[in-house]
């Protein structure tokens, strides 16, 4: 089953959001407009808008406000992707050429900045300070997460805690914020808002862990980029951390990266196999499962509804995600 099937009944609302996204990025300059539109058309799971919609439907559903929040969050996410591709020197994203590759670094920088500006222009139509407090804090943390990711590249002595803090900032916080903003817009009480924030946080942690696993277990076609790409870039993810508990593997890996210029995706194959043989994939799935259980537990007390059931289904789906 595909993730999208769990929320297929939101098709109409998601279409409205998609249309709004298309409208918001209509820049005056054709290059900015085309680059942004191409990125939008490349698709994506739109999980942030989905969480905004689902949590927004748990209370008083204000369609205009929800649309604005969802569009802004997705634009922020897209802006970070465009800039990430500059950092990673990436040629492909979701199987399509990146803006950086198709145009160049400068265009990618301006497009990302343009998208972020549009996101802030859009979200400020909402006056509730709580929305801006939450989103701005998350945005700062996302940026810090990206910087910390750079800092810990090739750091073979980092621990599980460092990794978890990094993925919290990189992925979980924006998903948590999506749930929180939807809930705030719906007028839910403080306790419910907090629970949904935590749900999003746990889901985000699990989602990122599985993304990190898939970097080793999926095919390039499924990934839309080469397998082992994260490790090749020096990003030490959970499977690598678990595999490095084996001292011999850790030594081999450290030796390999001593001359970074010699690292290519071709010599990743051996290490990918090793990571699998050492049981690091299963161990990582186990951690992901722990987060998913927490996500399911935390929303137990939320009153029954279609949206709540979908939130639960999403958690179940993420646990089974294999591509």
């Amino acid at each position, binding site marked *: 089953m595909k993730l999208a099937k769990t929320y297929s009944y939101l098709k109409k609302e998601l279409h409205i959001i998609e249309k709004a996204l298309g409208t918001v990025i209509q820049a005056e300059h054709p290059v900015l407009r085309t680059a942004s539109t191409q990125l939008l058309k490349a698709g994506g799971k739109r999980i942030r808008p989905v969480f905004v919609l689902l949590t927004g439907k748990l209370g008083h559903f204000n369609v205009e406000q929800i649309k604005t929040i969802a569009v802004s969050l997705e634009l922020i996410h897209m802006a970070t992707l465009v800039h990430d591709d500059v950092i990673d020197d990436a040629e492909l994203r979701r199987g399509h050429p990146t803006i950086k590759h198709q145009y160049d670094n*400068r265009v990618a920088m*301006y497009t990302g900045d*343009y998208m972020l500006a549009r996101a802030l222009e859009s979200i400020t139509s909402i006056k509730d300070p709580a929305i801006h407090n939450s989103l701005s804090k998350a945005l700062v943390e996302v940026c810090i997460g990206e910087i910390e990711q750079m800092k810990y590249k090739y750091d073979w002595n980092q621990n599980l805690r460092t990794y978890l803090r990094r993925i919290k900032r990189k992925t979980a916080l924006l998903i948590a914020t999506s749930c929180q903003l939807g809930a705030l817009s719906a007028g839910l009480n403080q306790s419910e808002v907090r629970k949904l924030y935590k749900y999003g946080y746990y889901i985000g942690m699990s989602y990122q862990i599985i993304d990190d696993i898939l970097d080793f277990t999926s095919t390039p076609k499924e990934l839309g980029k080469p397998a082992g790409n994260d490790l090749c870039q020096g990003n030490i993810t959970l499977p690598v951390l678990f595999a490095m508990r084996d001292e011999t593997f850790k030594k081999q890996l450290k030796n390999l990266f001593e001359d970074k210029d010699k690292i290519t995706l071709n010599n990743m194959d051996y290490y990918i196999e090793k990571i699998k043989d050492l049981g690091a994939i299963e161990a990582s799935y186990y951690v992901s499962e722990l987060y998913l259980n927490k996500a399911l537990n935390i929303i137990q007390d939320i009153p029954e509804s279609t949206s709540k059931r979908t939130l639960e289904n999403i958690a179940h789906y993420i646990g089974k995600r294999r591509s």
Partner: protein
Amino acid sequence: MHNISSELEKIKTDIEDEVHYKYLEKYIQKPKIEQEKLFLIYSILLNHNISFSKKNNYIITTMLVQLALDTHDLVNNDETVDQSGVTIEQQLNVLAGDYYSSLYYLFLSKIEEQRLIHTLAVAIREINEAKIKLYYHEFKSFEELLDIVKKIESTLYTHIALFIDESTLVPFIEEWLLLITLSKLKYKKEPTIFDKMYISSNDTDFMNFIDTQMEQQMRQLREITSQLPERYISLKNHSEIFLNKLVK
């Protein structure tokens, strides 16, 4: 005057503290706060009827946006890229710019200034539109080129002026910042937006045009300055000193 410079020094330190990030500073240059722009935003707000702390916050956030934009201009299509991809400086300039942008949003959210967040976001959008135009060298004449540069250099500040209902300042801000940029270009004091956009200052025709243009700009600026309300005495004096220096 002494008070103004010590206050500006204090604000500059506050901004530097705000953007301080040890890991970033290990690899990339500390963001450069342009003295003229800091002075400008300070003077715009000086006589405006808002609290001292609010004023400070407005100045800090505007400068954060300026730093974010400037830092992203340092990310180029570099020839120094090594085999493994992009240099760490390039990568961190991307992240530093994003970080400064996020700080502006956080700063203004804390004081519930949604309207200013919006104003600055509009300015950022317009500046990026202008930058991409300049980057693709989409101008048919030197005059058009200077119009784009004027937009890039002044939009943040003109939007702040409009935000506080001081539209009389807009022509002054535009002409003053353009003249500063042109003088930097002419005397090669420091890199300008022209260098960042690969517009060569070795072109004789272009530099001759700049010379003529600067004279015209100076006359225009004197005229605009003379019409500024008296409450902008510090701007008037400062611009007078600047113009006199240029004449010498």
